[in-house]
């Protein structure tokens, strides 16, 4: 019997375990495996293989029974996920249904999740902007959260490293607020976007309109062909999965790359219950996994563990990993685990119309749009609120037909539409301030379908966010007016936090173990062989779409982890 146990233990032992296969987990797997580690990748959802498991990717619009509208019963059963812009008939298979993983909204929070191999990297919005020191300096300069233990110079080479492999399109704009990267050619501007860019450049020294940097192969390089990927075809139905591998996802890129080494064991349908802490050894020795089919618990062991379960679930795993040494969650000596969670404020938008450039239009579709980097409180604190916002911007024209009446005239009109004028639109991406009062915790009684305590989410906007919404609306209105746009309208959706799908923090990095969970290598201060490199690690949020930073942090951390392992430090 004891022999059997030893055999089973040996069979279940790896060099490394990666929890999660999404955007950061995929990178952890690729990097650790690339450095020779036999790695177990655990994914709580089902397997989704590149191309073959994208059932709707080649469906024409008329092939969708309800033309991509959600059925009433789907909408009624899923009030949370139905709010997500990317959830429609053609993508239902990639989103977690409300009942599958219940959680408690102490305050309204729309938790958008993708439980499958690849996670949300399948359906993400693919915007990839670097951070700068204006972002990393934020908490220290403005006196919130704790100082980041890293600066731009620490992560810059890793941005370059992941950009070259992932394939990031963009223009070298030379902006201190949004450092340039290793770019494939940028997407094209249309006439009105160019007009706006020039007007803004002429009016404001510190405001720039640039083409968004996006994870699309505008001109694939040899490394992308080696990955089996091809040029983006501008279908703009990315969230259904791309058979060309035209955008970066774990499924198209990191996971197959790791798999072909033969050193990866991918175990889908594996919900991580907790990380095992060995009191005698003073280290984590493995993880407890619940098989979603059998509901049986199984243990797996490894020298190092990368936790990449997505921001909130990484908090959940640590909170649920209790021991005599860590009664309040793994590595939680400071008591800050689950606290100082934050997100991006996407509430506000501005729209308008433009009467010029009527002899020009666009042709084709673009999976990207221009971007306005943060211009508030950059060099110094100058507004009545902390930090600032970035903004998306785009212009376009649509054909419209007179839909009055019925009969042959209506048909004639429908088939001979008139090209409308230009519309312009923008949305804000505001930094929110991590606060102790925005926290995650485990419920003491309610459990999920696997017997794991439900996550209690208590995250809300504050006065700073409201002030920023107002300023964004005023400033974009002014900028739109400057560009000659008409019928300018502002909106504030008052959408709950969560719909931004940029939840961050709870396991923050910091210099001081008394006030943070992770050190500058994304390593738990108190448990050196556990690394957290997804959104949970974020000390502050800045304004940039965070995925690129998670990729770079993960590659950097994995590099350190393997070096430290070889030196016997972990």
């Amino acid at each position, binding site marked *: 019997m004891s022999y059997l146990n030893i055999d089973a233990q040996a069979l279940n032992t790896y060099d490394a375990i990666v929890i999660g296969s999404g955007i950061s987990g995929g990178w952890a797997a690729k990097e650790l495996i690339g450095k020779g580690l036999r790695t177990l990748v655990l994914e709580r959802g089902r397997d989704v293989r590149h191309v073959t498991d994208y059932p709707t990717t080649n469906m024409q619009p008329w092939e969708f029974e*309800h033309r991509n509208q959600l*059925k009433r019963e789907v909408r009624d059963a899923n009030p949370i996920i139905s709010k997500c812009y990317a959830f429609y008939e053609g993508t239902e298979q990639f989103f977690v249904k409300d009942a599958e993983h219940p959680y408690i909204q102490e305050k309204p929070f729309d938790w958008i999740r993708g439980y499958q191999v690849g996670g949300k990297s399948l359906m993400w919005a693919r915007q990839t902007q670097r951070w700068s020191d204006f972002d990393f300096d934020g908490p220290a300069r403005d006196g919130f959260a704790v100082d980041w233990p890293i600066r731009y110079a620490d992560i810059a080479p890793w941005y370059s490293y992941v950009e070259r492999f992932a394939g990031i399109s963009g223009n070298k704009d030379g902006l201190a607020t949004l450092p340039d990267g290793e770019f494939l050619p940028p997407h094209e501007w249309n006439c009105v976007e160019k007009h706006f860019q020039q007007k803004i450049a002429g009016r404001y020294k510190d405001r720039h309109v640039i083409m968004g940097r996006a994870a699309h192969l505008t001109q694939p390089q040899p490394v992308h062909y080696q990955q089996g990927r091809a040029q983006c075809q*501008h*279908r703009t139905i990315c969230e259904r999965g791309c058979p060309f591998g035209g955008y970066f996802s774990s499924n198209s890129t990191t996971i197959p790359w790791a798999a072909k080494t033969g050193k990866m064991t991918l175990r889908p349908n594996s919900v991580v219950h907790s990380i095992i802490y060995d009191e005698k050894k003073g280290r984590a020795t493995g993880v407890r996994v619940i098989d979603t089919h059998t509901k049986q618990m199984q243990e797996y062991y490894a020298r190092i563990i990368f936790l990449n379960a997505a921001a909130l679930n990484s908090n959940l795993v640590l909170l649920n990993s209790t021991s005599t040494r860590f009664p309040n969650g793994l590595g939680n000596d400071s008591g800050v685990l689950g606290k100082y969670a934050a997100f991006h404020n996407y509430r506000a938008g501005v729209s308008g119309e433009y009467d010029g450039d*009527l002899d020009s*239009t666009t*042709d084709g579709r673009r999976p990207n749009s221009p971007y306005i980097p943060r211009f508030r409180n950059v060099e110094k604190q100058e507004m009545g609120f902390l930090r600032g916002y970035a903004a998306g911007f785009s212009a376009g024209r649509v054909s419209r037909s007179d839909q009055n009446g019925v*009969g042959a005239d209506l048909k*004639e009109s429908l*088939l001979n539409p008139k090209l409308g004028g230009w519309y312009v639109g923008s949305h804000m991406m505001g930094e929110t301030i991590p606060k102790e009062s925005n926290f995650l915790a485990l419920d003491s009684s309610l459990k999920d379908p696997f017997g794991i305590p439900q996550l209690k989410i208590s995250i809300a906007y504050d006065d700073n966010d409201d002030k920023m919404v107002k300023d964004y609306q005023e400033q974009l209105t002014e900028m739109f007016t400057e560009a000659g746009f008409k019928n300018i309208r502002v909106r504030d959706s008052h959408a709950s936090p969560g719909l931004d799908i940029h939840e961050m923090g709870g396991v923050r990095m910091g210099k001081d173990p008394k006030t943070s969970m992770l050190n500058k290598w994304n390593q738990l201060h108190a448990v050196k062989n556990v690394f957290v490199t997804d959104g949970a690690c974020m000390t502050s949020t800045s304004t940039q779409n965070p995925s690129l930073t998670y990729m770079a942090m993960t590659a950097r951390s994995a590099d350190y982890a393997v070096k430290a392992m070889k030196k016997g430090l972990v």
Partner: protein
Amino acid sequence: MAGAVGGLISLPAWATGWTPETVRSSRKILSGSQTDMLANMVETIIPTTDTTTAAGPGAKALNVHLFVQKMVTDCYDKPAQENFRKGLDSLDGLAQTAFSKPFAEGDAAQRTALLTQLAQSTDKGRKDFYSLVKNLTIRGYMSSEYVMTNLTHYQFIPGHYYGCVPVKTKTLSQPK
């Protein structure tokens, strides 16, 4: 993709992609006669034509009535479904009053006039019924394989985005 605007003769080419089987709702909320009435109504909204620049099959030949029924069944709530049935049931009575024949037997001008009257009705239920069917008819017709392939030249794989092109080369707007 060049304009195969052949009208009804080209039916087999597009009918294979969008057959009654693919648009038929698994649940049926309409009786046979209500379905027939709906077919006549959608055909009145978008008729088969051969004399205009918009020649080609109408909504009925493209099975838009089955699409409308499927949408109302699967995507709308019970009160809307109820009003939908009630509206269909009222058409023959309104037709008798207006032109002394069942709806289906009226000529195009009579049926068109009757629907125009519904559009202007002060009765909320009637107006809602008309708007629901008309909007779904337009949606079903414009997003049918026949129209998107032959008339509006939908590009599933554009392969490019050109930001500034002269207006005249632009085709119809391109839904996903």
